[in-house]
């Protein structure tokens, strides 16, 4: 998409074109008090529409926008190979990491436009934000580092060397520590953010991928893609307390490749996408028992729960669609086209 490049350059200059673009977005919505002169635009961004579902599709360079029932509404042009996404703290912006153009795209949710980018290192994949939302911690697969970026000044603040192919990143709610998986080294690094260094390497299963924090912050779940398991770490002493191996009737262990995970809003269920098994596991958080496995599309990875807890959205990377799971019924209710290689799902409360 060469035509996008000039626009990136313009919008990268802070404060010049952004007010104009925002004004247009606001005009089309019709209402909202807005000051085009404010230099910190974020606080003045119009409120986003609630209950929108956003899906990054890696090969379309788009974020697809759906309503909660899975009806596709529109698409947002973003940077090349969009993967992981997160909302800003006020939910008015989406940050999206772009693996091929080595950028963080900043999307204004209300106007559905990418308004700027932050240049990142080689092949960014998963990231997390500091508790104040100002710093992004990004895993750079090809540089084998976790790098920290100031999202306002766009400066690379520091980096911490990791094992090969760092992937999942999780910053603890107090902002003092971060966990990073290394897919190649089969470890989770515990990083002290103030000291900017690895303070502990925790061996987990083969090819560890993503994290989800559970049990009121006491447990950190780590998916092991080639271990067909989840390692449950204690955030108190940073040791593996339990390994939960997945079994799916009729499938061999080698076909079960867990990657994406999501916690239900009530904290009682962890949803684990089982990759090539084409199933999602519904795991009881407390007893660590699999309650149900639900057939979805091919190579289910990214997934997210609706804040009302009634629906789980699953991105199926190899069948280019998204499956909606009715959590009460424990069944897939709909599968909708979601662009080429859907990666992650984000749901606006």
């Amino acid at each position, binding site marked *: 998409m060469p035509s996008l490049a000039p626009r990136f350059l313009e919008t990268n200059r802070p404060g010049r074109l952004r007010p104009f673009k925002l004004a247009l977005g606001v005009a089309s919505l019709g209402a909202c008090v807005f000051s085009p002169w404010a230099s910190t635009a974020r606080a003045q961004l119009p409120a986003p529409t609630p209950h929108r579902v956003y899906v990054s599709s890696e090969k379309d360079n788009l974020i697809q926008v759906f309503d909660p029932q899975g009806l596709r509404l529109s698409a947002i042009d973003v940077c090349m190979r969009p993967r992981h996404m997160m909302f800003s703290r006020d939910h008015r912006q989406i940050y999206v990491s772009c693996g091929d153009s080595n950028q963080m795209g900043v999307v204004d949710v209300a106007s559905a436009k990418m308004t700027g980018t932050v240049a990142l290192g080689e*092949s960014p994949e998963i990231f997390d934000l500091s508790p104040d939302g100002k710093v992004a911690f990004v895993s750079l*697969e*090809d540089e084998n580092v976790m790098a920290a970026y100031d999202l306002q000044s766009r400066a690379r603040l520091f980096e*911490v*060397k*990791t*094992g*090969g*192919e760092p992937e999942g990143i999780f910053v603890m709610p107090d902002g003092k520590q971060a966990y990073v998986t*290394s*897919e*190649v*080294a*089969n*470890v989770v*690094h515990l990083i002290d953010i103030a000291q900017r*260094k*690895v*303070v*502990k*390497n*925790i*061996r987990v299963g*083969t*090819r560890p991928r993503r994290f989800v924090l559970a049990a009121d912050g006491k447990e950190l779940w780590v998916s092991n893609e*080639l*271990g067909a398991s989840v390692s449950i770490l204690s955030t108190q002493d940073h040791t593996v307390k339990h390994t939960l191996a997945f079994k799916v009737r009729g499938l*061999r262990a*080698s*076909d079960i*490749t867990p990657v994406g995970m999501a916690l239900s809003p009530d904290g009682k269920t962890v949803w684990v996408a089982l990759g*090539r098994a084409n199933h999602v596991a519904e795991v009881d958080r407390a007893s660590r028992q699999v309650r149900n496995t639900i057939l979805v599309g091919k190579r289910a990875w990214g997934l997210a729960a609706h804040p009302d807890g009634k629906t789980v959205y699953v991105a199926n990377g190899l069948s280019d669609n998204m499956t909606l799971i009715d959590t009460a019924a424990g069944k897939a209710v709909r599968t909708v086209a979601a662009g080429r290689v859907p990666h992650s799902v984000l749901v606006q409360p």
Partner: protein
Amino acid sequence: MNGLRARPGRWMGAAALVAGGWLASSWPVPARAAPATVVTVAVISQPDDARYAPRRLEQAYPGHPHGRPLAAARMAAEEAGVELEVLGLRLKVIEFSMVDAPALPAALAQLKAAGVRHVLADLPGPALQQLVQLAPAALGGAMVFNVGLEDDALRGDQCAAHLLHTLPSAQMRSDALAQYLAARNWRKLLLLQGAEPQDALQAQALMRSAQRYGLKLVQTRLFKLGTEPRERDLASTRLLTGDREHEVVAVVDSVGEFARTLPYATQWPRPVVGSSGLVALGWHSHWERNGGPQLSRRFYKLAGRPMQAHDWAAWAAVKAVAAVLADDPKAPVAQQLKRLRGGSVYIDGAKGPRLSFRPWDGQLRQPMFLATGDGVVGLAPLEGVLHPTEVLDTLGVDEKESACKQRL
């Protein structure tokens, strides 16, 4: 490529050691870590190995090595650094070049002095066999990885309990191809075969695959390179492919020169498979899933050329050493072999599923790529191919067919 090539002129003695370990200090570990126990892996090669002759490397035939595999072995050791450091271990890869087969006993003595038990053999057949014979006694227990030869016999009646293979066998390659053709219902094959002994072995493998997957060899013809008018029916791609019954031309050419001239040069519009056209490979640098791009990029940065199957095999062998060490850091080599050949130690080969060794012949199970000059068009085992226990065992010699008697 230059940095990896043999430098025969510089070899003074029978053998020489080139240190190639990685510095522990470059690893992200807590500063208080205790000094690591070093496990040394030797990559043994011959400087005058014909497969690495400069003119041959220039040709870069598909399925042939495109350079020495040392860089890939070192890359795997580097990748394992963090995981092993946690366990107080460090992998070091050394290059060991052996002028000729008679130099082997002296070479082994040097390896023993360096504490080597894990050997990657990138050697021609006779030298490999000699190494396999002498290594266990000479090194006080040894594990040998064949990373360069696809001969089925090495996995069959010439197998050894301490010999493992990470490069796919000829049978695995032809099975992958046969699965692909069967899945498309392209079943009638014209087989063109060269005069090299390797060609006969590859043709045998292809015939077994054809039988296994219901392909029909409608005709087999020998080809011969040349321009002599009286032998033109052996050399002309059009005359060799003139009959009409076949749907696909399968070419078995271990040299590669003839096969290269065949696609788009047949009498009838027929696809070419085997040694050119559609080729079954253990790695392809354009594989875009399962972390493939990251692996290929890392290798390219290190070696300055695209990664291919022989590099992957060396990388996978060191990964296997790392995996078995991580599994039980204190196990002696005999125990490690048992674990690897027991099929319970898995490695991540960036090809999708976790990979393990077959207990019956020491071959690493793995998916195979079906590739054209341009990229990957298929992945074997093909979808829909079934096996009672492990679908990867539909590629290559399965337990009941194996002629290997030296099992653990």
